[in-house]
């Protein structure tokens, strides 16, 4: 029984954290939020330079060949910095589908290479959400149809934006027609792949939620140490302390659950779906509490567009 990550995994996480601290400051996020596409090609290119798009692409296709356990640390950082991009949809979910496809005449290899090189955005549409993130910017759409997997070119789909309260998410209704030419996996093979994608999507969401929870806690701590009332920092009052201590406890006890889920996925464990569901619930609970409590600690400032908190809260 060993829950610790190895030095390489930690070093990679630390490098990504450093990169995001510099390149994804809240001021930049606020700017990106206001752009029409909601995406920064520059940030995405820099993320690719850091190896983030190549993370789980097999080495044969120019990737780094890492897996679920490596991703879990990175996903937490993507959450902590509220990265306004569906990076994980391309680099984690689409890659999982593509690299496990039945023989496909080099189709998957071509796209895996593009993804690893940071030259492709792939949107993934699963019926658990009727809308598809970043469908308009995508170079390729991987879509569910009766458990089959279809690869649809942007020109063959009609997309319409559905604004979300979280402006870091750009969600689209996608209208398209399934055809034998778009089908890249039959229902038999597709079903297991979609299940694998759903588990990984839930786990990625859990990890990002925990990253967000930690960020909202940190923002609450910073604010409560600075903000003075009755001549003292509000963070010195027990009522405020206890609000934030509760959040810390939720995060601490959700994290090992999430690690166990990632481990189960990496081992193709028979109970992986249970482990993932537990992680998603625990992380969601931590993030919801973090949002609620951090907002309370921020007082009226928390209810404004002007504090950074609002971006993290909405993403959570």
């Amino acid at each position: 029984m060993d829950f610790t990550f190895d030095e390489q995994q930690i070093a990679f996480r630390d490098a990504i954290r450093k990169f995001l601290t510099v390149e994804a400051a809240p001021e930049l996020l606020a700017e990106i939020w206001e752009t029409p596409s909601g995406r920064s090609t520059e940030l995405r290119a820099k993320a690719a330079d850091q190896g983030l798009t190549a993370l789980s692409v097999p080495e044969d296709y120019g990737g780094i060949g890492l897996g679920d356990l490596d991703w879990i640390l990175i996903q937490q950082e993507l959450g902590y910095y509220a990265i306004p991009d569906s990076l994980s949809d391309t680099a984690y979910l689409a890659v999982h589908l593509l690299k496990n496809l039945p023989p496909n005449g080099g189709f998957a290899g071509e796209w895996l290479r593009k993804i690893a090189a940071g030259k492709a955005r792939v949107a993934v549409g699963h019926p658990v959400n009727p809308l598809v993130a970043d469908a308009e910017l995508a170079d390729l759409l991987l879509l569910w149809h009766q458990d089959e997997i279809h690869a649809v070119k942007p020109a063959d789909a009609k997309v319409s934006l559905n604004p979300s309260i979280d402006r870091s998410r750009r969600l689209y209704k996608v209208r398209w027609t399934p055809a034998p030419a778009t089908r890249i996996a039959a229902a038999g093979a597709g079903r297991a792949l979609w299940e694998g994608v759903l588990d990984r999507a839930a786990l990625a969401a859990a990890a990002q939620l925990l990253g967000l929870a930690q960020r909202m806690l940190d923002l609450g701590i910073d604010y409560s140490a600075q903000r003075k009332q009755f001549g003292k920092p509000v963070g010195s009052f027990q009522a405020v302390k206890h609000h934030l201590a509760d959040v810390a406890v939720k995060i601490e006890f959700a994290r090992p659950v999430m690690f166990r889920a990632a481990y189960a996925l990496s081992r193709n464990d028979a109970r992986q779906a249970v482990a993932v569901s537990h992680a998603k619930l625990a992380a969601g609970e931590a993030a919801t509490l973090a949002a609620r409590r951090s907002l309370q600690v921020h007082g009226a400032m928390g209810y404004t567009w002007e504090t950074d908190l609002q971006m993290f809260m909405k993403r959570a």
Partner: protein
Amino acid sequence: MRLEYTERQNAFRAEIRDWLKAHVPRQPLESFDTEAGFAQHRAWEAKLFSGRWSAVTWPVEMGGRGCDLIEWLIFEEEYWAASAPLRVNQNGVFLLAPTLMEFGTAEQKARFLPRMAAGEDIWAQGWSEPGAGSDLAAIRCKAEVQGDHYVLTGQKTWSTRAVWADWVFGLFRSDPASQRHHGLSFLLLPLKTKGITIRPIRQLNGMTGFAEIFFDNVKVPVENRIGEEGAGWSIAMATAGFERGLMLRSPGRFQQTAKNLVELYQRHRDTADADPSLRDAVIKSWMDAEAYALATYATASRLARGGQIGAEASTNKIVWSELDLLMHETAMRILGARAELMPDAPDAGDIGHWLDGFLFAQAGPIYAGTNEIQRNIIAERMLGLPRA
């Protein structure tokens, strides 16, 4: 990361499981808060010791097995899964022993540890006083130096197991001019010593689980002091976080209760399913017990790699005490009209232990440092919020 047990760990699990299967009494023992029950539990400690299972984390030469934390967690999982008796010497084995190991002299270790492991000495703890509860540094109980003795005067309270125990350990003010956490000494003394009066306190459940201890010129030899005179506070606190935080309430205990709760729910689905929120509460109980276990394994593996314990003692305390409440409240809801029946009520069947557990769970957020104090510790030491 490797979340499987080693072969050695699996073999260890099999060994303790077999031993417990052969030795756990078929009939549950009487409560150790009665004279007869206390004697039964003392005999059980001796039985555990005969199999070298009474203090598995201790070094072999002290009567233990030198188990690491992972093995200890495995031991506890099996112990609770086997419905083995509660540990009457918990204060000694899990609270005092780690302090003795770290700060005791060779003579003190040889004198106290083997008898503790064998259940020959059962230990009570003497921390709280009427004026020193959450504010433990307000201790006033005096230990006046007279030659090679201390003379104790004052009062301790909420002293767990003190009604029937043999020895007590606690903090006493040895420097009369001192304030707060200075000038306290860590002393050990037999409860049969002249000048001691013990008044049992009746708990919420009607039993006398703890007591007040009155000291009227009680003589304690200087060699019964652990560590330096006046260093009692730091000695008491040094091992507090590390051992108690992980060992006071192991996850195995709550995982077993969660499992029992799932069974209780399954037996009562015909009535319980009328309220769908009950099912959610059962599932949440199971998940939280699982999370507590995973978090403890995560801490243990971090420590095994040379990491330091952080605020786990405080975060754990909040989690297990709230989980225990949730589980027992849920059981009470499932049992409905029968929930209030005393264990010996003719129509209570085998459900009475849930009421016992429910009452005991009420104490969880209070003892071993209230949850409010734990939240202060988390906020100040883990999150770095300013002190009041």
